[in-house]
């Protein structure tokens, strides 16, 4: 497995005080929090920072981690054969790296309590056509799955998800019970996917309205002919209400987004 340099992740020295570490965590958490950040790899960075903080904030874990000596980030690493760390059961079941699980794992899944698994958040990008008509998507998920010794290990699984028709940009969709597994027989968390619409060559969606910007020669708006705009989109033409009326008249009114039809969540399978 790869060594994780938690000090480097937090951007602090190995002699940083508990206050320094807390301050660094707060700053990085604000920067990469998935609810706040628009950084491209925010989710992964946030998890990495959270994991580093979980170790460095706890004097026992930090001392044990320091005892491993300093290594380069990403360097191939094996814990010492006599390595043993007894973590308090059930303190956390969030997704961690293999490195963390090997050193400080054994939490959560074999704790003596029952609890709902964590939700997994993700993002999917859809074309306008896919969002409009609904589609199916294969989603790769990293989930904690108990190995033969009951230790949670990060495992990548593929899911085939049916996306309902009529999803608009920024909305969330929920795939029930496909997040992290529950603890002690508790129910699994949900998979939550935020939808991002990819830019379309012609159309632009604003909420449930679909627009087409059609350039019209300034001097000749009268001659703007009812265009062959696709029936799937209501058209809007800037600075030309007359032309807009003619476009409306060509039969696109009401052809914006369909009302979303929430699918009944029933059949559940994994591939």
């Amino acid at each position, binding site marked *: 497995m790869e060594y994780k340099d938690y000090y480097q992740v937090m951007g602090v020295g190995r002699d940083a005080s508990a206050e320094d570490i807390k301050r660094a965590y707060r700053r990085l*958490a604000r920067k990469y929090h998935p609810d706040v950040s628009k950084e491209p790899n925010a989710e992964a960075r946030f998890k990495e920072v959270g994991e580093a903080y979980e170790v460095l904030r706890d004097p026992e874990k930090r001392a044990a981690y320091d005892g491993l000596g300093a290594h380069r980030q990403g360097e191939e690493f094996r814990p010492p054969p006599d390595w043993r760390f007894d973590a308090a059961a059930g303190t956390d079941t969030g997704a961690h790296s293999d490195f963390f699980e090997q050193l400080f794992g054994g939490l959560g899944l074999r704790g003596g309590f029952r609890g*709902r698994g964590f939700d997994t958040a993700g993002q999917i990008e859809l074309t306008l056509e896919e969002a409009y008509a609904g589609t199916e998507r294969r989603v790769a998920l990293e989930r904690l799955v108990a190995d033969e010794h009951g230790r949670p290990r990060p495992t990548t699984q593929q899911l085939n998800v049916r996306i309902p028709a009529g999803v608009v940009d920024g909305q969330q*969709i929920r795939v029930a019970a496909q997040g992290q597994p529950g603890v002690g027989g508790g129910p699994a968390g949900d998979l939550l996917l935020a939808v991002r619409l990819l830019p379309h060559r012609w159309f632009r969606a604003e909420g449930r309205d679909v627009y087409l910007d059609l350039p019209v020669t300034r001097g000749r708006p009268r001659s703007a002919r009812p265009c062959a705009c696709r029936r799937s989109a209501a058209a809007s033409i800037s600075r030309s209400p007359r032309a807009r009326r003619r476009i409306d008249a060509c039969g696109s009114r009401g052809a914006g987004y369909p009302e979303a039809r929430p699918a009944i969540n029933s059949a559940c*399978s994994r591939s």
Partner: protein
Amino acid sequence: MTDPISAVLLDDSVDFSLTELCALCRVSEELVVEIVAEGIVEPSGTEPRQWRFSGVALARVRRVARLQQDLGVNLPGAALALDLLDELERLRRGGR
């Protein structure tokens, strides 16, 4: 290939009771009562036992819970953050 799993759109067409919302967001009923009192979400129904929360409200409560837990912000701070994030999102989309 196996049958796909159906996803449910979290919009105003789905709703949840207080108990369901708490289980799904892993939060206490007391916190949800405070979130409602802060005006962050507005359930339908008058009494907490009759409250129904939309899918949009579910997403907001989840965000508040995460902001509280991960960043240590209090409820008014989380409410302000959510409002500003909504505004930012609207501006990014070029909305008016």
